[in-house]
Structures are given as C-alpha cells and as structure tokens.
C-alpha cells in the first residue's frame, strides 16, 4: 500500500510529534503545514489543538489557516479531522474565558463540563482518562459505518483530557458520546467529510491507531 498523504496544521500550538508519529505508524506520510499554501493542497487535513480555545483560534487565524480550512472542508470536500481543541474550534464559539468565536463550520457552542452533577456531587474537572465511545442513538453503532469509527466497536475506550466540550446544535452531527459522571460528553462529530474528536486518538493505544487508519481510508 502506498503511504496516504495527510497534512497536519502546524500553527505553533502544542506538540505535533505524537500526532505525526501516530499517522506514520498507521501507514501515512504526514506533512506538517506551516503555511496556508501547504495546507491548501491537503488530501486529508488534521487540525490539532491543545490548551485554551482562545489561544488556539487566535494562533490558527494568525497563521492564515482559517480560509484554507474552510476551502478544504467545503469546496474541496476532503476528509478533515479536528482533534481535542481542534474539534472545538470547528463550532460557532466557546464559553471559555467569555464568549469566543470559532470557525463556525458546525453549529453549536463549546461549554465547560459542569463541576457539579445532578445530585449535587462534585465532578472532577479536567476530565482526564479513558472512557468508552458509544453511538448517540442506535446502540449497534450502525451509524459508524464508513466513518472514522467504521472499524471501532461501541464501548471502545479512548483517552480524554479536557475541561470543555462541544454542544452541537444538530443532533445528526453527533457521531459518538461518552458518559462522564452522569454528564454526556460529545466525543466525536461528523458532518459529511468533516470530523471532530474530543479524545486523543494518538494517545489511545491500538484503539486510537485504528481510528486513525479509518480516517486514512476515507
């Protein structure tokens, strides 16, 4: 099999080494794009992101990537996947440190995980750890066919580390959820060729690498 091309946006936020390496061992030849020109040619695009929503969006815009992401998603219709804050940025905005605008590619907002549950008990934030992926409605996972979760079994554990999560407006955009102490976290979204995962596939062991391989075969 020839190596599949994937372009990872490098806009100066966080460490991209693990992401690039995870794609490499999954059979891809990852390219780090530092300029919009490089990103515009992407066959498949990955938008990483860690830390604060605002600093990620600001850095992404400052690097000139906003328009090119839009173009790859909507005009060129290539597979695109945002990871963690890279997923959160796809939405209209975030409530982190006051309302911050996102890329608006998916309707919905990003909000903090509630620190208290329905019964009044404390919920630890950040949410750090492994948690199982579940389809939002059909337990069979039939909706995962031909998506990044196409070869993933419902109940598969993946690694999360985050304090905020997306609340999509369109239920049909939700690909997977996970329960965190009674709070339903949106774990993965899909709208056509556009994907977002709140967890870290590059840190989720063999299960995460499987999701990366599925993304590469889209």
């Amino acid at each position, binding site marked *: 099999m020839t190596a599949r091309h994937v372009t990872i946006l490098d806009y100066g936020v966080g460490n991209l080494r693990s992401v690039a390496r995870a794609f490499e061992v999954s059979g891809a030849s990852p390219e780090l794009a530092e300029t919009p020109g490089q990103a515009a040619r992407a066959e498949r695009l990955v938008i990483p992101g860690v*830390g604060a929503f605002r600093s990620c969006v600001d850095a992404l815009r400052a690097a000139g990537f906003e328009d090119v992401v839009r173009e790859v998603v909507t005009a060129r219709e290539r597979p695109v996947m945002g990871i963690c804050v890279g997923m959160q940025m796809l939405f209209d905005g975030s409530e982190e440190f006051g309302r911050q605008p996102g890329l608006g590619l998916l309707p919905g907002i990003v909000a903090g995980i509630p620190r208290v549950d329905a019964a009044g008990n404390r919920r630890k*934030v950040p949410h750090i750890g492994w948690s199982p992926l579940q389809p939002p409605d059909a337990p069979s996972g039939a909706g995962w066919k031909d998506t990044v979760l196409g070869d993933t079994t419902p109940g598969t554990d993946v690694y999360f580390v985050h304090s905020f999560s997306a609340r999509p407006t369109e239920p049909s955009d939700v690909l997977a959820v996970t329960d965190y102490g009674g709070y339903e976290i949106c774990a993965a979204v899909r709208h056509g060729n556009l994907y977002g995962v709140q967890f870290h596939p590059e840190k989720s062991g063999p299960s995460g690498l499987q999701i990366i391989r599925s993304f590469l075969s889209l």
Partner: protein
Amino acid sequence: MQRRTRLIARMDIKGPNLIKGVRLEGLRKIGDPQARAARYYAEGADELIYMDVVASLYGRNSLVDVVRHATEHIFVPITVGGGVRSVEDADRLLRVGADKVAINTAAVHRPALIGELSRQFGSQCIVLSVEAKLRADGGWEAYTDNGREHTGRDVVEWVQEAESLGIGEILLTSVDREGTRKGLDIDLIRAVTSVVDIPVIASGGAGSPAHVAAAVSDGQADAVAVADMIHFDRINLMDLRSDLTGAGLSLRNPSAG
C-alpha cells in the same frame, strides 16, 4: 457509569537505567527503560510516568532522549518529572512528546511557577508531584529530592494551594510506603482526594492487587501508579488489570475495538 480507574506504570530513572528503591532510597537497577516501557504499553498500561530521580541534583532533566524514543512507539499519555524548573524546561519535554510534566521542588520554592506553566500549556498538562511523609502529629509533610528535603509544608494545605494556582492533577507518593509493598497510605490518599476537585494519582506501597483496589475504593484515587510490583515481575499489568476488574473496579479493556 463508574469512572475508569487509570492504571499507570511508574518508571524512576537514574542515568540510563530504570531503577527502584525503598522509600525512594537504596536504588536497585532494573534495566533498560525503553524495553520496559514498550512492554508496559503492550500490556495495556493506561499511562506511563517517567521520573528523573537525580534531576534535582544536577539541576536538569535528562529524560529528553528517553521520552523522544518512547513516543516513537508508545501511544498512551506520558508524564515526565524531575528537574522541571521553568517554562523552558517544560517546553523542552513537551516538544519531544511528553503529554504532561510533573513538578515538585521548583513549585515548592516558587509556587508562581504553577501559574506560569498552566497559562502557557494549560493546566491539564501540569502535574504536582507530592512526596508525603507522615508527621508525628498524624498529618503529612511535603518533601522534595526523593523524600530527603523538608519543605515545612503541610500536604493537605499544599495541594489546595497548588490547585488554586492551576495544577491539573496530583501525583501523590507516600515516601513511607514507597517500595515497601505494605499497601498504599489510604489515609493520606483520602486526606487529599477529599479536599481537591482535580484527579489524584496514588503512588507508593502497592504490593498486591488488593492494595491497588483499596486506594481506589477507600482512598478515592482516580489513578494508581505501580512500580515495584511490575518491575520485579511479581505480576504483569494484564493480570493486575483482570484482578482489579474482578474486585469490582472499572478499567479500560485494552483488547476491545
């Protein structure tokens, strides 16, 4: 659903070797950290922790190469500690693929470092490493330098202060129990988990699966770091995991999906 308990392989490193001591002293060589890390990953460790135990002595963390190599083949979160004194030190480790950095000595001497690190990298990747020793009055004092240096800080007060400054997680090591196989210090774990709202990794003293289970069910630890048990091949992580699942804990199933 019950939250998954994280089972973490802790590797204390001195120079080129994985080592293990008793109460963080009397260090014995175990062997090549790379081979061990690969094995623990294959056996389903949820995370790895690397601690450079001589870093404070030399004023720097020497694990950059170890981490760079590990992240070539290991796709679970990696925490690195020892000798992290500045934003630059943390950046160096995060750049080679560490997911979190653990700080102790530098944070004790200059708590403002916690805020600097969490603003720069996000609190989710800043771990406070606490070396706790029981005091005569029943409380615990935080130590540095592998349990050798007093800080005068009360552990319960210190973790609360550090949480307010922006720490994202706590690695809580009982120096008294470390390497003894006598069980984790449940009172210590409980004292910390009951006052903070961030995850706590319990470490020090796990000699059996029952000890690990108690740290979670009685201590309310979010994660347990094991070392002695697995380094000396007294049990492997797969068997430990199935014992813990049998004891009613919820752990990830690494073979699914």
